[in-house]
């Protein structure tokens, strides 16, 4: 009898103890990428608060940065070799070091299978990430080149959306005569031209297969197709389609320029649509939903002379959240991190992303009727693109991409020829390739 009582007491004690441990708080350090000035930020803040309230056993210590400060912070974390427990990341590009050093866990082994099944196969392709595994689950496929078009402005000046480059070029004097910038771009940051336009031009004229051949050492950047793509950028500046002033225009300036009707077109990534949407806290929008619908269109860059891939637009796997590889497998912290990510990729968060226009989710089951016209138009834009191609900073090492980014500015300034830029890239590529052996 005594033994039975002792056994029961022991079981109760173990149950109590495990209960106590289950109640033990886990702290997760999160490095989030967020722009507090972006419409929809308040929704994001509210959802983080909700997760915290629903999960009292997890304490979220969140650090939020965006643009360069974010990347700089990541760089210092990488230098220290200690990433935050959960962090926002790219599949390559600016997160190359994080990915190549395998500082993130493989999410394909951690996230629930039924959740992963909601993503298209392209988003789950491990080879599309620099790590070679699913170090982050892309929440979207990012189209890096969209031509935001002020249709009303064109119409008021007797113009229509151009189908060919020649048509676009013909518009330039008419628009300039009205004091309108034909195509706004913020080329002060060197990545913008490369990511938001040149990758598309290169894809259309040279093609991804050509880039693959260069990477395999079977072709060179100095070959005709790639130099032709660079030459087209020179043409854009010489024709006045893109002003040389754009090289002094900061990235933050262009939404205002475009929304205020000072430019007929804006070339930027799909993420830029969020800058124009309604901010729920203030109820204001750079472009009102009614105007989005009636006065604007999202179109692809017109047909380029000599293109062999008509309609191609550069696209890349989007961003997502990663879990630090340093968290011990199976630990309470690892479980908490998985719980956080399962929620972050869940329906509620992803729907919020869609409704605030932050991104068009790759997750297949997300639908909403609370989206603004630009978001609906962006989905239609994706559907209209016949073929996607490489975003060059996603496939080229930074050592090769830097002379490209700088070179595109130098072409714009007229201080370097397209052939010289191609030559610089090839030299950088040869050096980089030799260092890999």
């Amino acid at each position: 009898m005594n033994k039975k009582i002792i056994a029961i007491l022991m079981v109760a004690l173990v149950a109590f103890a495990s209960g106590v441990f289950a109640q033990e708080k886990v702290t997760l350090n999160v490095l989030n990428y967020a722009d507090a000035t972006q419409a929809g930020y308040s929704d994001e803040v509210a959802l983080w608060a909700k997760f915290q309230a629903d999960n009292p056993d997890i304490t979220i210590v969140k650090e939020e940065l965006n643009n360069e400060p974010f990347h700089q912070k990541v760089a210092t974390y990488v230098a220290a070799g200690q990433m935050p427990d959960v962090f926002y990341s790219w599949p390559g590009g600016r997160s190359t070091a994080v990915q190549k050093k395998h500082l993130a866990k493989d999410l394909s082994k951690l996230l629930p299978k039924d959740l992963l099944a909601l993503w298209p196969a392209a988003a789950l392709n491990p080879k599309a990430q620099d790590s070679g595994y699913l170090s982050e689950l892309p929440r979207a496929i990012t189209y890096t080149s969209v031509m935001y078009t002020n249709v009303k402005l064109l119409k008021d000046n007797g113009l229509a959306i151009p189908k060919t480059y020649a048509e676009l070029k013909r518009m330039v004097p008419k628009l300039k005569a009205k004091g309108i910038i034909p195509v706004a771009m913020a080329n002060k940051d060197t990545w913008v031209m490369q990511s938001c336009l040149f990758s598309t031009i290169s894809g259309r004229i040279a093609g991804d297969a050509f880039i693959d051949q260069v990477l395999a050492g079977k072709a060179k950047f100095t070959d005709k197709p790639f130099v032709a793509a660079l030459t087209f950028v020179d043409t854009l500046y010489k024709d006045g389609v893109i002003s040389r002033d754009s090289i002094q225009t900061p990235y933050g300036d262009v939404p205002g320029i475009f929304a205020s009707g000072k430019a007929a077109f804006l070339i930027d990534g799909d993420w830029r649509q969020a800058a124009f949407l309604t901010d729920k806290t203030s109820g204001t929008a750079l472009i009102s939903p009614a105007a989005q619908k009636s006065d604007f269109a999202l179109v692809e860059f017109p047909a380029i002379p000599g293109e062999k891939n008509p309609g191609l637009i550069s696209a890349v796997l989007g961003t997502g959240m990663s879990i630090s590889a340093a968290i011990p497998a199976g630990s309470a912290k690892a479980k908490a991190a998985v719980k956080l990510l399962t929620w972050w990729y869940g329906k509620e968060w992803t729907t919020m992303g869609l409704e605030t226009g932050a991104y068009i989710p790759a997750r297949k089951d997300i639908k909403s009727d609370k989206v603004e016209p630009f978001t609906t138009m962006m989905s239609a834009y994706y559907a209209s693109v016949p073929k996607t191609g490489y975003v060059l900073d996603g496939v080229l090492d930074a050592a090769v991409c830097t002379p490209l980014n700088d070179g595109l500015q130098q072409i714009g300034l007229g201080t370097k020829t397209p052939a010289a830029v191609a030559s610089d890239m090839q030299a950088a590529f040869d050096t980089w390739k030799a260092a890999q052996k």
Partner: protein
Amino acid sequence: MARKRPLGTEEGRAYWTMVLPAFVIYMVVMAFPILLSIVLSVSNYNGGKMFGGEQWTVIGFQPYARLGIDPAFWMALRNNLFIVFISVFGQIPLGFILAYLISRRLVKFPDFWQTVIYIPNIISVVVVGILWQTIFSPYGPLSEIFNKLYQANFHSHLAAIFQSFGQFDIKNVPDSLAQKIVNLAGPTAASNFSNPVADLKDLMQSYDANQSGMLVNDLTNLLAPKWSMDFLNHRETAMLPVLFVILWMYTGLYLIMFLANLEKIDVQIIEAARIDGASEGQVMRHIILPSLSGVIVNLAILAISGSLNSFALIYAMTGGGPARITEVLSIYMYDKAFMNGAFDYPLANAVAMVMVVISFILIGITKAFEKKFGGKE
């Protein structure tokens, strides 16, 4: 020669008790990072845990060799030397002259001028950088003002040309009119049209007869010369605005330092010299400058080290662009260390070492000058 202080003696123990904490702090906070930077500059370390992480080894002077063949490095070095030059030969002489004028009461309202000149120093460098970036922006106030002036001038000339042709059929613009407008526009016409006269005629003929006012305004928009900050895009001149802002911002600092030291010079000596018939120039050359030679050297050292470290102002103002033509060594180093996702710590540390060596050389030259030409305070 330094005295020996054996640890066994009371003097020795007292000595080490007082010196050791400072020595340890110095070694940990100053010497260790410098030594580590030297080691990293000749290594293949590329981030991560330094001990127990990825293996890294000393590979020799490869990073320095890579620096040597990178044109961007030489451009950054050249820009840094420009800044050193404007600091030593711009800020210090200007600061001294202004301080002299104020301290000798050669200007009215000396306190006002002292405050005005010093004010840029109390504003955050990032704010100053953004402020001047906005001023120099193609959509900034400077461009706006100049373009309005150009446009007004062009508009009046264009209106005169239209007037000289009197009434004409807008759907059949005379070649001579188009030619006159093209001549007035000069290079702007060539940059807008591949065949200026014919294209301009086409454009003009798209207007209606009752839109002549609009036509003149539109042609002004299209063809008036644009005042653009084109010099910001040329490697020979892009640093000029940066140098101007540096001069504008930091001259006040040297002014204050010179003022403080000028106050220390005995006024009676100056007065005596003046009574003996010395001119203001002679007072400056024979009394004030020799008295301040040590201060000038110290300020030059400060200016050199500050110039080589200059980062925030230029980063906020130009980000080193366009196409790196305003990059300085610290931005180049930062770019290699933290940008583009792939971090090159050996190269970044090699840059840091180069900056230290250049600092020592320039400071050595300054000291040598002071030894040869300086007076006694």
